[in-house]
């Protein structure tokens, strides 16, 4: 409405300052978003780099960190749909284990082609999630109980399929490459260009459409700053990963952005679109915010819940593929031990609320990176795994406290 195309630079400065002040106000009002995750990530990276300059702060470790983080991030991306409802899925970890088992058994023991095996794996997740969702939404059993039962049951299934103490190994090249291959340096630059260009195009086109509709728009200077920030991050990331990181480059060169990065970005894009731009996504937030209001608005609340559990479990099953790719197979503990806690931690650290109605898919990535840095960095400092559990538990508790406090603050400041 008011922002014309050619704005004098002093008003541009004011627009940037205004946007920044608006952001500060939101943070002060309790809407901290992903700020703790970003700050935590930076602080942890600086801390571990200072403590272990050789082992932690190496490009090889950076690539390994991403591959290590991927399965938990994928489980967390799915969990966010369930958390948005204000529900929980305690079975997500073992859903990924069972997904991995389905995949590996089909590939290794039955010689099925990989696309079919992947399909079967994701379909397994779909079935698990739909049944859990139906029990929660139709029979109205608390999700805590339903998914706890499935947690135990799926653990049993995994044990029966894989066999106690056994492992089934995987040799399918395609699946293995997901967490073991890298983009060529040139493709890495293409990817960066696509990410930055895509973001800029989306932001500027959206803004132009709003202006044409006669609606207030964000100042182009603010969008420009965001694009520049993203470009800086992408250039840094590409430079880091395009550097040679092989121990002995003469034998085998090792460089490029890990393949999992574009795979994750595709999922981020699709799921963010689903939550942010479609009617279904809007209804997910509504059900999480006020189920009674959603019901009166004519939204089919049980269907929305079932769909969210189904998406959560499909993402978990897909994470099973990543586990199989990372560890060359499946074992009875795949997706077990603290996998689920790490995934819940990732979502909450990233800024998704345990109370429902607040969260974004990117939270899983930001929080998952924080969890991965702790998981990766602590063993370089102390061999005691007890300390690692305690630290991760403390971080999860800290994130949950930030969530609860920001809710209280939002209530008291009326934000």
């Amino acid at each position, binding site marked *: 409405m008011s922002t014309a195309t050619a704005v004098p630079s002093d008003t541009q400065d004011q627009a940037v300052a205004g946007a920044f002040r608006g952001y500060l106000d939101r943070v002060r009002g309790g809407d901290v978003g992903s700020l703790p995750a970003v700050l935590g990530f930076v602080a942890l990276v600086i801390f571990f780099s200072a403590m272990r300059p050789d082992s932690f702060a190496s490009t090889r470790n950076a690539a390994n960190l991403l591959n290590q983080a991927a399965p938990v991030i994928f489980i967390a991306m799915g969990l966010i749909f369930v958390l948005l409802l204000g529900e929980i899925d305690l079975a997500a970890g073992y859903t990924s284990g069972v997904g991995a088992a389905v995949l590996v058994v089909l590939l290794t023991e039955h010689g099925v082609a990989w696309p079919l095996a992947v399909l079967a794996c994701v379909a397994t997740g779909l079935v698990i999630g739909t049944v859990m969702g139906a029990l929660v939404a139709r029979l109205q059993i608390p999700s805590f109980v339903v998914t706890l039962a499935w947690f135990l049951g799926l653990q049993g299934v995994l044990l029966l399929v894989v066999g106690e103490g056994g492992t089934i190994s995987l040799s399918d090249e395609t699946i293995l490459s997901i967490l073991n291959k890298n983009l060529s340096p040139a493709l890495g630059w293409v990817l960066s260009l696509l990410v930055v260009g895509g973001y800029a195009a989306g932001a500027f086109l959206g803004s132009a459409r709003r202006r044409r509709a006669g*609606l207030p728009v964000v100042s182009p200077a603010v969008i420009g700053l965001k694009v520049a920030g993203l470009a800086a991050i992408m250039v840094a990331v590409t430079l880091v990963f395009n550097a040679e990181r092989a121990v002995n480059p003469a034998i085998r060169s090792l460089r490029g952005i890990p393949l999992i990065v574009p795979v994750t970005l595709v999922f981020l894009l699709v799921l963010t679109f689903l939550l942010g731009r479609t009617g279904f996504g809007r209804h997910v937030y509504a059900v999480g915010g006020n189920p009674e209001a959603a019901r*009166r608005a004519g939204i089919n609340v049980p269907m929305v819940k079932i769909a969210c559990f189904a998406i959560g479990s499909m993402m978990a099953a897909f994470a099973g593929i990543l586990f199989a790719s990372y560890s060359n197979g499946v074992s009875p503990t795949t997706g077990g031990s603290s996998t689920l806690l790490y995934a819940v931690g990732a979502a909450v650290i990233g800024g998704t609320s345990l109370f429902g109605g607040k969260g974004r898919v990117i939270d899983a990535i930001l929080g998952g990176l924080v969890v991965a840095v702790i998981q990766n960095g602590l063993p370089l400092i102390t061999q005691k795994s007890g300390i690692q559990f305690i630290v991760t538990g403390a971080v999860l508790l800290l994130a949950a406290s930030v969530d609860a406090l920001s809710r209280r603050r*939002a209530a008291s400041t009326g934000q």
Partner: protein
Amino acid sequence: MTEDPAPVLRLRGINKSFGAVHVLKDVGLDAWAGKVTALVGDNGAGKSTFVKGIAGIYGFDSGEYLFEGRPVSVSHPKQAAELGIEVVYQDLALCDNLDVVQNMFLGREIRSGLTLDENSMERRAEETLRGLSVRTLKSVRQKVSSLSGGQRQTVAIAKAVLWNSKVVILDEPTAALGVAQTEQVLSLVRRLADNGLAVVLISHNMNDVLQVADSVCALYLGRTAAQVDAGSTSTTQIVELITSGRSGDLGLPPTLAQEAVA
């Protein structure tokens, strides 16, 4: 009785029982376009039950339901909405985590293809609010959790008039509000009627009723005591209708008023 020719909404001889409890007995109500009709009565008189029946949350057991002169059957909220009847319930049913536009269009989002048409929704929300002369909202993109009680009520009312509705029923819209916000909401209620809507206002507060109502329908223990013209009836008479079902030659015949108590 007010004798304007054609009420938009007319109910006659409505009965409703919950099991053995006969809650509504031969209740009636008229609501005219451009007028505020107050529905008053003591606690438990049956106001909310009556309104929920009108909204189609449950069907009436018997009685006439006329909309624009035609008999209609309304047994589901969707049917009421299709006729153009919207209800703003006492607990506003807004999602705190969504913004004003998102709440106003909840469940009836405008889509273009696969995606939501945010720009059209935002524009229509702004137009509706402007049409109601609402100036208290800073931005239609602010979350409902950041709004005051009066602003929330405003959003809930705007949501009800967004759909070219003809009848808007408000269940105690000022019950939880302070003096200034009550004033704001009441003048909004008045403006709805001035814009040509038929407004039914449930209220316990005689001041509110006298300030905005053109017509007053008093329920007494599940019966319509009387529907009277607000201008030609005194406060004392209305209070008597509420508390004893009759006032002078207005209201229920003495036998019925007595019987209801027994």
